[in-house]
């Protein structure tokens, strides 16, 4: 059975476990109707021209998981920022793992979406925020919404700063066969609050995993969010990440996406600005080898005057890997004095790798500064000679230059331990030992 048919026939079973008289369930049903009509995107859709889900959709996945498989902390410690004290919301095969998590209701809420959906005291917040900024035309998002059940819920009240970074980690055990996972995260920052969040999906076994994740993030006035996505999963795992940010006046959001692994990864990152003096930052480093495929689709919607957006994506591709960058900037005609910058630079380390890069600017205001640039190149031979003439072997010299190419994206990572981790992940990907702590 194809995945779409299987999902449709599973929805009734899913409904049996849900309270059907809630507002949330009405939203689910409506979205399910939409998905049933549209189905999965195909290469005929302009937005999916360079990324095909066909092979993934042919596989047989388990859609519901009943039990949590226990995982020893020592097995997975390395996937956490264990050097730091952090809040953690951890899922194994889509099911909350209290053992690995470290949640809180003390001053801020770092807990489960299932709790927020079902408890009365959260009703007002859910009504205000849940499914408010998702794109109703995106069938994968509507699919996720139809099956919304579990994920991370983070609420930072007015003028509060989360003292610790918050980690959202989705493990798959590989012990339940192939899995189709649909986590749903809801993150709300009230006025003047701040948070740092790290999100990661990690498969621990050899079964195939397809994750269709949706995260809604609301930044109220003057709030500040740093969000880091670490995508270094194994080759049997694929991820479709749909992230939506809603920003109010003077808020500042940055999302860094580090894509070093996985089979197929699609990032749909959407920023919507609803006030003045907003800053939106999107940065990414992609390092791919072999059959891997990463597709970054970004959208920034400037709907008000005096806002800024910065995009800087670096891609490094080798050995048949394929990358896609599609960056759309929309500037409404009232959004005067917008500053929007977009940069996408790519290194193709051999002849067999591919990058499809497409900047899309739709500008309806006349007093704006918008720029975009994309480059596709290879390592500079002169630079390589310079390093080798200093005694640095060719492989290390290439790695150093590649590292230097991606470096400025790392500069804006605000958690030093995380920056160090990512540096070592990069060194590992490039196959060298780079020691930079002098």
């Amino acid at each position: 059975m194809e995945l779409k048919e299987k999902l449709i026939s599973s929805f009734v079973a899913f409904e049996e476990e849900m309270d059907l008289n809630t507002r949330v369930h009405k939203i689910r049903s409506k979205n399910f109707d939409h998905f049933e009509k549209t189905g999965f995107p195909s290469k005929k859709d302009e937005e999916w021209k360079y990324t095909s889900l066909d092979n993934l959709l042919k596989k047989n996945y388990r859609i519901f998981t009943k039990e949590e498989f226990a995982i020893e902390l020592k097995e997975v410690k390395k996937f956490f920022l264990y050097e730091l004290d952090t809040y953690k919301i951890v899922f194994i095969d889509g099911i909350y793992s209290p053992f690995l998590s470290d949640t809180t209701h003390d001053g801020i809420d770092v807990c489960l979406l299932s709790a927020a959906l079902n408890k009365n005291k959260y009703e007002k917040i859910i009504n205000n925020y849940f499914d408010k900024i998702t794109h109703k035309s995106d069938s994968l998002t509507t699919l996720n919404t139809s099956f919304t059940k579990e994920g991370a819920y983070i609420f930072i009240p007015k003028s509060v700063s989360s003292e610790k970074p918050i980690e959202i980690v989705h493990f798959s055990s590989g012990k339940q066969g192939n899995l189709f996972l649909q986590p749903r995260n809801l993150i709300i920052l009230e006025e003047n609050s701040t948070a740092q969040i790290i999100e990661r999906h990690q498969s621990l076994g050899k079964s195939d995993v397809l994750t269709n994740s949706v995260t809604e993030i609301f930044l109220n006035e003057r709030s500040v969010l740093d969000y880091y996505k670490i995508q270094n999963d194994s080759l049997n795992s694929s991820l479709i990440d749909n992230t939506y940010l809603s920003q109010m006046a003077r808020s500042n959001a940055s999302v860094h996406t580090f894509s070093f692994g996985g089979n197929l990864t699609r990032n749909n990152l959407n920023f919507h600005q609803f006030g003045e003096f907003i800053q939106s930052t999107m940065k990414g480093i992609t390092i791919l080898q072999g059959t891997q495929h990463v597709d970054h689709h970004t959208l920034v919607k400037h709907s008000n005057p005096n806002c800024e957006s910065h995009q800087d994506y670096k891609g490094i591709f080798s050995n048949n890997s394929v990358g896609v960058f599609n960056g759309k900037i929309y500037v409404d005609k009232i959004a005067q004095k917008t500053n929007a910058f977009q940069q996408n630079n790519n290194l193709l380390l051999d002849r067999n790798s591919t990058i499809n890069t497409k900047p899309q600017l739709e500008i309806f205001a006349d007093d704006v500064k918008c720029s975009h640039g994309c480059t596709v190149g290879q390592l500079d031979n002169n630079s390589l000679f310079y390093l080798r003439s200093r005694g640095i072997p060719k492989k290390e010299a290439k790695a150093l230059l590649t590292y230097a190419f991606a470096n400025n994206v790392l500069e804006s990572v605000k958690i030093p331990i995380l920056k160090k981790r990512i540096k070592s992940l990069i060194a590992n990907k490039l196959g060298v030992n780079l020691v930079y702590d002098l």
Partner: protein
Amino acid sequence: MLKINNLHASADGRIILKGINLNVNPGEVHAIMGPNGSGKSTFSSVIAGSDDFDVTKGQMLFDDNDLSDMDPESRAHSGIFLSFQYPIEIPGITVTNFVKTAINSIRKAKGLGDMDSSDLLKKIREKSKLLDIDSRFLSRSLNEGFSGGEKKRNEIFQMAMLEPRLSILDETDSGLDIDALKVVANGVNRLKTRENATIVITHYQRLLDYIVPDFVHVMFDGQIVKSGDKSLAKNLEEKGYDWIKKELN
């Protein structure tokens, strides 16, 4: 130490070096002068192992080892250093870390372990003092946003740190004002020992007032057409390269 016999080299099918002969012994300073386009920079790149050029004929021996068989890093490991005319910029790698990587690469090739960090820092302090380098400069990204003079000073700093046996200084004087030139020349002179040798490549005689050569060679159209002592450089300065051209005709 370095023996060049009838060296021919070409790039993209164009012959640039047309039979160079040169012997350099330990403790010697050689200057190679010549007009633009005579092949000076090509010559230095070919010795250091650039693959932009093909050696089509002749021989380059360093300690009786044939350089043609060695890649650029192996040449560096055996003690050859090229100070680049246009040093490249590497964002994100500090001068200190770059030098550390280079030193440890060379040590590794010799079967030695990494240099002890405190020894390395001590050496860095000593050599940066020699070249009048501010310590803040060492924590900046390699050559990124450096002025022309800073880049050249950084080249000589690397040379001081790596302690090569044969240094080739390609147009090290270009882009330097007179004060910077004195500092760089003074550094080069202080690094000179009886065991190491230097080839100074320059268009102008000015640098040779500060780094005094034992031998001066004039390169023209891919060949060394005249060799002499330091007085040859003075003659060139007075009479210009036309003098050589006339003499050749």
